[in-house]
């Protein structure tokens, strides 16, 4: 039977004018295009799918700001941001392949169903050729699978679980953000220097996929250097008060508490841990310590003073270039254009979104086509620099970016309201790189790219 086309608004927008003139009904039943939503008019539409309601809304909105900035820069407006520092010079500020960049926005609500509905509407109704954004791994994995099916490129937003480029990886999906394994690998040496090798760790882990992979990554990395895991406890996503999970820590042999929590969970569990005096506690003759594997500026803001001195890892920080120099070129350019537009420095969620949009545009430009397969090919194995993270590789085997990981801790005496974390160290790429068949990423196949149609 005939393979019918799926929606192609881009095409229609241009032919509509002609169609109106002819006033002739057209029925499309056959594949008229090489791939889903091939842009044939003077614009190309990108879909920015971020949480705008729910607990991660602030993160999502920050991401959206960065996307809007990226669109400006791609269209040659504003100061150009990181386009000036980006190692690839394919983009010239005249849109993508000469087409002006337009965008649509949607609300993922941090629910996989809602995120997919929103992404589908972008693909089916608005003719988006690429979907990007999101602030949780559940959503990233769900939308990535959808984009694979529909034949568009997915540039993941903030997603940290190994699964996104591990067991749930997809040929049409790409992740710039770092992952659980990298957090573990980056944190371990820093923790070793700061707290020694003889430690008893107690884990409170969010009871869902991201929590599982992150706990596993941190445990494997710290146990390898000699730490002992005394207890791991899973906490419900819906928990708001963690006192009953913190209290047993007091009665255990632990001298380190690892909070594998994100967002509101992390803010609350850390606040509760500090309330119970864990920061002042002495155990086994050592100072008790708390570690939060994944950090974000917004979480630091939510936790307030409780975050001071707590170690964690980040994908990027706006102070990188100032603190550590030219290797992280691009950072200041981005902070400047973002800061001047919005009045505050960008979060790492904003940064990864901006970079993903630029990387996509660049790949299209280099491939000379919006065809997802061509774009994927251009991204696979792509090495670049100047986007704020130092030299970076988009690995072909799993579509994961490999770059330095920033280890941070909560700042003791912030200068102003934006100065919440300080960079402790940057763990170089080699130390956080793993083999594509690493057990933490086992199961699942990339499959082959799907151009849709």
């Amino acid at each position, binding site marked *: 039977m005939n393979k019918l086309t799926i929606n192609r608004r881009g095409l229609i927008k241009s032919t509509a004018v002609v169609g109106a003139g002819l006033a002739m009904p057209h029925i499309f039943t056959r594949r008229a295009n090489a791939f889903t939503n091939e842009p044939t008019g003077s614009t190309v539409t990108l879909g920015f799918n971020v949480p705008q309601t729910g*607990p991660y809304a602030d993160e999502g909105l920050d991401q959206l700001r960065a996307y809007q900035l990226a669109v400006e820069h791609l269209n040659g407006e504003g100061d150009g941001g990181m386009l000036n520092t980006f190692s690839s010079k394919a983009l010239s500020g005249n849109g993508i392949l000469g087409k002006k960049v337009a965008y649509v926005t949607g609300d993922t609500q941090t629910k996989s169903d809602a995120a997919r509905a929103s992404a589908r509407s972008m693909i089916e109704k608005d003719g988006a050729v690429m979907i990007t954004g999101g602030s949780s791994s559940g959503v990233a994995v769900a939308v990535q699978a959808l984009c694979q099916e529909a034949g568009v490129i997915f540039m993941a937003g903030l997603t940290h679980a190994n699964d996104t480029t591990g067991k749930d990886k997809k040929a049409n999906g790409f992740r710039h953000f770092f992952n659980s394994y990298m957090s573990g690998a980056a944190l371990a040496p820093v923790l070793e220097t700061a707290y020694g090798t003889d430690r008893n760790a107690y884990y409170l882990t969010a009871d869902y996929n991201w929590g599982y992979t992150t706990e596993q990554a941190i445990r494997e990395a710290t146990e390898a250097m000699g730490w002992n895991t005394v207890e791991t406890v899973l906490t419900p996503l819906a928990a*708001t*008060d963690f006192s009953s999970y913190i209290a047993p820590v007091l009665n255990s042999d632990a001298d380190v508490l690892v909070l594998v929590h994100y967002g509101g969970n992390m803010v609350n569990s850390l606040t509760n841990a500090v309330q119970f005096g864990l920061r002042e506690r002495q155990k086994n003759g050592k100072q008790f310590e708390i570690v939060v594997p994944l950090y974000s500026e917004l979480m630091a803001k939510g936790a307030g003073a409780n975050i001071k001195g707590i170690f964690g890892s980040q994908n990027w920080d706006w102070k990188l270039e100032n603190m550590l120099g030219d290797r992280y070129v691009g950072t200041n350019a981005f902070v400047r254009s973002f800061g001047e537009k919005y009045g505050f420095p960008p979060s790492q969620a904003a940064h990864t979104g901006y970079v993903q949009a630029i990387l996509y545009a660049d790949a299209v430009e280099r491939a000379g086509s919006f065809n997802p397969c061509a774009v994927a090919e251009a991204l696979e194995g792509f090495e670049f620099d100047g986007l704020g993270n130092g030299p970076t590789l988009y690995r072909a085997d799993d579509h994961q970016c490999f770059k330095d990981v920033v280890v941070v801790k909560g700042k003791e005496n912030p200068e102003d309201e934006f100065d919440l974390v300080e960079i402790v160290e940057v763990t170089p790429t080699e130390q956080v790189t793993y083999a594509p068949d690493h057990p933490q990423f086992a199961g699942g196949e990339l499959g082959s790219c799907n151009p849709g149609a």
Partner: protein
Amino acid sequence: MDAIILQVLNGLDKGSAYALIALGLTLIFGTLGVVNFAHGALFMLGAFCAVTLSRLLAISHETADPTRTDFLGNPLKVQTPYVEEWFGPEIGGTIVEWSVPLGILFAIPIMIAVGLAMERGLIRYFYKRPHADQILVTFGLAIVLQEVIKYFFGANPIPTPAPPALVGSLDFGVMIGFDPGSIIYPYWRLIYFVFAAILIAAVFAFLQFTTFGMVVRAGMADRETVGLLGIDIDKRFTIMFAIAAVVAGLAGVMYAPINSPNYHMGMDFLVLSFVVVVVGGMGSLGGAVLAGFLLGVLESFASMPQVTNVVPGINQIVIYLVAIIILLTRPRGLLGRKGVME
């Protein structure tokens, strides 16, 4: 043993939040017969009273410090709260730090006003309407209140610390003969528990020992009869609604240092507090309080590693499981009255 004592304390602490919310909810159920899905939003508004006051107290005078720079390289703007300018850095600083306890005074008039406005402006038109309509309208109101707060304060949690003097924890264990450091409990959580106990006692005393309370209790039992006695029960019910709003609001103010307030904290508590009210038994104030503490303690025990290692996931469902068991063995919850919302 020390672990168990700690969990009992935790349970009582969680339970006091549940009990306070459930108490207000059941007051509104009992007196007005209204299913108030916006009650969680009142709790949230209370917490944001504390946030607002701390923001108000921190309204600052901006001066540029040319020796330091902000993230864009411009001179850093230094914020000095006006209270510090007026009262000197010492006293002014203390005032800012004590914004949560001061928030109680700030919240009472605001919550009264919110309660009265809600009841007079909206709820009273729904006394005679089906419960389904009440749910829809109060749920809509809850969303609106939540979104308004989100519009002004964002979605991120806002740290609202307790005064420094009350931060830190009490070594409870030493006082009862345990090793130092084995049973320590945060001061603020103890304060919360005591505060909740006082508030609950005050509400009960008010209903038990004042004429006003007597009439309201009579009205809860049989509204029409009291109306026939020529007593303007509606006016008293309006006041009861305001009281319920204040109870929820104060529970929220005091809760702010325990967990940073965010705009959806009310919704997070809503479902639980309904479970608490129903497990306690419809129309029973004592039941609501009892169930609040009971579920709080059970939830705390279920989250101990010794328990979750044996029954994985029990901490996720314990409250609901207990609710089902109680409702199946005691048809009207712990202390429910016959015929209320059956």
